[in-house]
């Protein structure tokens, strides 16, 4: 447990993630089809997880790992739910 991850690494990681988040969000905004948006949302969920992982390293608390477990289980339910009802032709 005695590791010191350089803050530079963490900051770069965070920047990557943030950039990813913003890009995914742009896709979410632009569409064009709803399915694209859902895909973007899916990616965003993953980004959230990555955020949490990085953060747990940053503050050195293993307890944060409980979150990804649950997000990984839950997030796709949203995706499935949205796509399930997309079959019906409403936007």
């Amino acid at each position, binding site marked *: 447990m005695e590791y010191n991850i350089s803050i530079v690494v963490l900051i770069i990681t965070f920047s990557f993630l943030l950039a990813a988040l913003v890009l995914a969000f742009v896709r979410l905004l632009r569409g064009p089809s709803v399915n694209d948006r859902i895909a973007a949302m899916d990616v965003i969920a993953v980004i959230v997880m990555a955020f949490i992982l990085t*953060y747990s390293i*940053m*503050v050195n608390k293993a*307890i*944060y790992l409980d979150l990804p477990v649950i997000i990984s289980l839950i997030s796709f339910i949203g995706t499935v739910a949205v796509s399930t009802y997309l079959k019906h032709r409403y936007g």
Partner: protein
Amino acid sequence: MEIVLAIVVGILYTAGVYLMLRRSILKFIIGLIFMSNATNLLVFLSAGLVSGSPVFVDGEKINAEVMADPLPQALVLTAIVIGLGIVVFTLALKYKFFELTGTDDLDQLKKTDN
């Protein structure tokens, strides 16, 4: 940092209120969710923020470091769950209403006043 979050709260409120003032009931409900999120964040924020120290006491010994305030967390948790119940009920209500009347327009809802 609090100021940024406070602005987030403000924007969430703005979005919520703006949505609530729309004529569509669905938008109203989404506005409600935004407002409730904003409120939760406000409650969470106003008690002061401590980052990176979740409130888990480790056995008998009391941690020396500054702990985040657990109470607002509990309050917000309660509020979130209550909000869920209310939102779902509102959705159901709206659904039923639409089924009966075929309109989503709040301005059509004038029968019970006057």
